[in-house]
């Protein structure tokens, strides 16, 4: 695509770089409409410019109004009628293209799709991989690993206001709304970390509510899933043991779960495998010790209005906590 | 400089100054108001049914509104049409006495309707804050109460006016239009009554 050829085009979080059949079909309809409308636009404007230039009255006075002759209006009638016919035909073409695309998208088979549950919150994404055996259910946040080439069913709703789940490289967006259970089908055929962002204004930090869809070959995906289903590893060094104590004795437990510890609150993201995620704060920051430390101490400075309060602790407590969190792979 | 020439004229001095129905400007204004308020009612009724489609039980966990007071009000409204139409026609003839009687009668009917409406509200069997059903029922009712009360005030003011020395042709136009607006209040009560009192019974079955 022409736009994609512009230098500096990163290729991520864009509908112009489809990595799956959903976004791919949409791009096809986009191209159809683009070419038809671009050509029509140019023709109409050229006609306008040509006629204005040719019929321009060159003197500064305003001439008397012209009587309209049957001759001139007959030609105009033919031209306008012809233009209308072409307009209708082109509109029908684009409309049928739209129906065909929509129909194809709607036909993605629900039965054999792999289901992932997404619950939108102000301003993060809760992700669950349901399993027939409940203890194998995976709960994570903001990073959605998926197997390549497999039909996916994103099944979701919102826990508060209306959000919109949108990973443009993969598929069109779908609103997640309280009171509605929503299914949207998608499939990714190219490996990579495909960025998505909430696309329905949801309040103070709508701008910082991103997620990543990590598409990987099935065996890698299964490995990841098994790892995520495990409980957290018990801390073994004095520093990490103390770090866990810091976690359990601060306000952290009011909102976060770490499976394998008494912390079980579902208000905020599940941290059991925090260290396996590449970003924190719904895609706002890379998951580094520095960023994580800053986030824990004062999330409000980084994401004002978010639900995480500042936390007071000594420097050494923070170090130990970060060391512990770093073991949660 | 432009010439001034004797020109033909269109003399309108013989045209009436008091005319009714589509020949009265305020009649059109009243029709405009009816279009607006009618649309509000239609959209509210649509919202009621939309919410019904989103609820498996309707009304949720309670009885529909009691039939008695609403039906009594319906009858009173329908009966009021008789004096309404009578005085409307007499207004077009400039019959002062008939219009005075008619307006007094309609004021009394209106007061009666308001009183009965008070009892209706106490027998809706729901509160607006409990759930969406209650909110929809009370709002639909509330819209009609608003129309009833404002029309009653209009009618009473017009009644008083007709007993002063300020009566003129324009006021007879107002009287006809007042009657037309009362028709609107009555006419919309019919579907609203059916929605509030009968829809939950029919849909339930």
């Amino acid at each position, binding site marked *: 695509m022409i*736009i994609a050829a512009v230098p500096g085009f*990163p290729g*991520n979080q*864009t509908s112009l770089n489809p990595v799956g059949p959903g976004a791919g079909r949409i791009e096809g*309809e986009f191209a159809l*409409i683009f070419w038809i*409308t*671009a050509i029509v*636009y140019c023709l109409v404007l050229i006609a*306008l410019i040509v*006629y204005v230039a040719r019929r321009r*009255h060159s003197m500064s006075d305003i001439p008397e*109004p012209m009587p*309209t002759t049957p001759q001139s209006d007959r030609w105009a009638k033919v031209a306008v009628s012809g233009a209308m016919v072409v307009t209708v035909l082109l*509109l029908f073409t684009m*409309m049928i293209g*739209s129906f065909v*695309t929509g*129909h194809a998208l709607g036909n993605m088979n629900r039965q054999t799709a792999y289901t992932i549950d997404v619950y939108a919150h102000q301003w993060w994404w809760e992700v669950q991989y349901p399993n027939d055996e409940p203890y194998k259910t995976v709960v994570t946040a903001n990073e959605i690993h998926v197997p390549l080439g497999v039909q996916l069913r994103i099944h979701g709703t919102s826990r508060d*206001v209306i959000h*919109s789940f949108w990973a443009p490289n993969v*598929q069109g*967006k779908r*609103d997640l709304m309280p*009171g509605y259970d929503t299914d949207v089908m998608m499939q990714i055929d190219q490996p990579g970390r495909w960025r998505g962002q909430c696309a329905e*204004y949801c309040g103070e930090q709508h701008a910082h509510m991103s997620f990543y869809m990590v598409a990987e070959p099935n065996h890698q995906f299964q490995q990841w899933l098994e790892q995520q289903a495990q409980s957290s590893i018990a801390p073994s060094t004095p520093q990490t043991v103390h770090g866990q104590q810091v976690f359990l004795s601060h306000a952290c437990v009011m909102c976060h779960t770490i499976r394998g510890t008494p912390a079980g609150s579902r208000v905020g993201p599940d941290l059991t495998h925090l260290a396996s995620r590449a970003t924190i704060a719904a895609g706002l920051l890379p998951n580094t010790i520095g960023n994580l430390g800053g986030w824990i101490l004062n999330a409000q400075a980084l994401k*004002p209005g978010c639900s995480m309060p500042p936390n007071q602790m000594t420097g050494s407590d923070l170090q130990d906590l970060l060391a512990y969190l770093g073991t949660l792979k | 400089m432009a*010439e001034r020439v004797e020109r*033909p004229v*269109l003399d*309108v001095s*013989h045209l*009436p*100054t008091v*005319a009714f129905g589509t*020949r009265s*400007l305020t009649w*059109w*204004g009243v029709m405009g108001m009816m279009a*607006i*308020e009618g649309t*509000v009612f239609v*959209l509210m009724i649509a*919202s009621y049914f*939309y919410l019904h489609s*989103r609820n498996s039980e309707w009304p*949720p966990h309670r009885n529909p509104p009691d039939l008695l007071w609403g039906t009594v009000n319906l009858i009173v409204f329908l009966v009021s049409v008789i004096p309404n139409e009578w005085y409307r026609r007499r207004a*077009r003839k400039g019959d002062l006495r008939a219009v005075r009687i008619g307006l007094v009668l309609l004021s009394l009917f209106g007061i009666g309707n308001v009183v009965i409406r008070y009892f209706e509200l106490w027998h809706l069997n729901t509160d*607006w804050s409990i*759930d*969406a059903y209650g*909110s929809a029922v009370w*709002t639909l009712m509330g819209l009609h109460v608003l129309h009833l009360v404002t029309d009653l005030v209009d009618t009473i*003011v017009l009644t008083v*006016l007709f007993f002063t*020395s*300020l009566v*003129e*042709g*324009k006021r007879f136009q107002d009287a006809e239009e007042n009657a037309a607006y009362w028709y609107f209040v009555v006419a919309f009560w019919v579907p609203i009554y059916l929605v509030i009192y009968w829809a939950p019974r029919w849909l339930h079955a």
Partner: protein
Amino acid sequence: MITTTAIESTAELTDQERLQAARLESVWREPRGWGWFKAVHHTTIGKRYAVTAFVFFGLAGLLAGGMRLQLAFPEAHILSNDLYNQFFTMHGSTMMFLFAVPMMFEALSVYLVPLMVGTRNIAFPRLNAYSYYLYLFGGLMFYVAFLCNTGADRGWFSYVPLAGPDYGPGKRPDFWAQLITFTEVSGLAVAVEIVVTVFKLRAPGMSLNRIPIFVWGQVVTAFMVIFSLPGVVLSSTMLLLDRTCNTQFFNPAVGGDVLLFQHLFWWFGHPEVYIIFIPGTAVISTIVTTFSRRHVFGYLVLVLSLVATGFMAFGLWVHHMFATGIPQIAESYFTAASMMIAIPTGAQIFCWIATLATGKVVLKTPMWWAIGFFFVFIMGGMTGIFVASVPVDLQVHDTYFVVAHFHYVLIGGAVFPLFGAIAYWFPKVTGRMMSEKLGQATFWLFFIGFNITFFPMHLVGLRGMPRRVYTYPANMGWTTLNQIESLGYVLLFIAVCLLLVNVSRSLRHGAPAGSNPWKAGTLEWATMSPPPHYNFLHLPTVNGREALWDAAPNQPVVVGLDEDVRSFLMTRSLDAEPDTRDEFPRPTIWPFLAAVATSIAFIASIFTPWGITLGAIPVAITMIGWFWPDRQPAEHRRTREIWQSE
């Protein structure tokens, strides 16, 4: 050449006419000083609407400047997230509710329609005054709240649950909802006035097929207002009730539904954009006609297109909700309808081009704005086809692509025609010509600035930038495009400043305009510039679609109306045959008092439900005062009554 009812100045009148003019002037004059609050003439109120709407346009434009500054740098801290969210909400709400409709529909129609149909005032003049004050007070309330850090911040359409009681703390969404109440009552009132004026107050001979296209456009718009505004009345009222009285319309936990708000809002919201656009087409038809020096080509097609657009606009609303997961059959219908509405719009465009192609094109400032309209609006129409297609919309909805789309159609479809309208009718309203040079400079600056600001938005949206974000990360590839857009704003700002300079200089030093500087054909050009308060010395009769171009050499004028009261003529709605006579009200303070009482009730009800119930009492009192007849005029009328024969 013999003129018709056009008069250059009172110097040209015969003595008899001069006496007549003086009599009319004394009956129709608008009061001075404190009498400002009693004005009831449509040209006075129309000018107030226009000035007030332009002030709001400027305020919304400044807010946009703040937004562009914040977005010029990734992760900038020029505006906090909270302030930015208020800015974009205030910008959108101001542009849509306090500028676009009040200017394109209310100001233009209130000032021009009575003149164009050949009558002395708009129908229901006191209601007209009342509607203006309500609009003004609503806008003031909205901005006072903003200055008190209680500005609306949930987007111009204020979706629930974000704006609801659980997630919209404080009073911010309540001020948004009440702004709607003020502006919607105001708009509905004017809509009824316009319909009645156009149906009943037309000059004799102005049958339906001789009504100026401008007037057709405004009457179609008026009907759209009447049937669409109730949607936003209900949705904003339900929002207020949920927030203040504990109703549960939008609470899914107890049977409520968040999409109910969206359906009711967009039932209004889609026609709303046509309410803004159709007056724009009405202006373009007028300018193209005058500056092509011929009757517009395809009058019937144009009228039918306007009516068709008005109807079809009501069938599209769900296209704003494609991302909510509606059933496929609904998707197909709304895609089809949204694309098909391009047909009547396309018909209008082709008719205008045909008019230009077969006329003599005069390139004065208004015509430049019309040409700009073609470039900008049609581009917006093209991107409209993208968003009409569900699959494509699911990628571009809620991104900067759609922000680009609607700015192209709204600025192209309303602001360009508006600036053309200003250049065109300024001579009529003020009696002076604007500077052509400054006018063309303004046009080019604005046209270039507009495209620099908004064209890149298509690209940045396709690159994934969502809308309503107060900032963005540096590594997304959006920075350069955002910076270009912000630079473009500077040109737009300068262009608007130039326009204001042109207006202010022309007011004082512009060349005298005379009654018809453009040699146009519609009736407003048949009287002095500015028009006297009685509009026309002699009420005209009409012989064709362009009243002045088609006038017979001895076109009759109307006589026989009383000249010691504000007498007017009503004609039959279809063929405009003379029908009855009536009397317009004289200046009065009651509309102002009623507006004050209404505003107090509306604003108080944000804080307590008693606001509406107790506040209704002063409203009732002022309305009774308004309606209560004055003794002397009533007696006067009674002595001269002629009843219709049954």
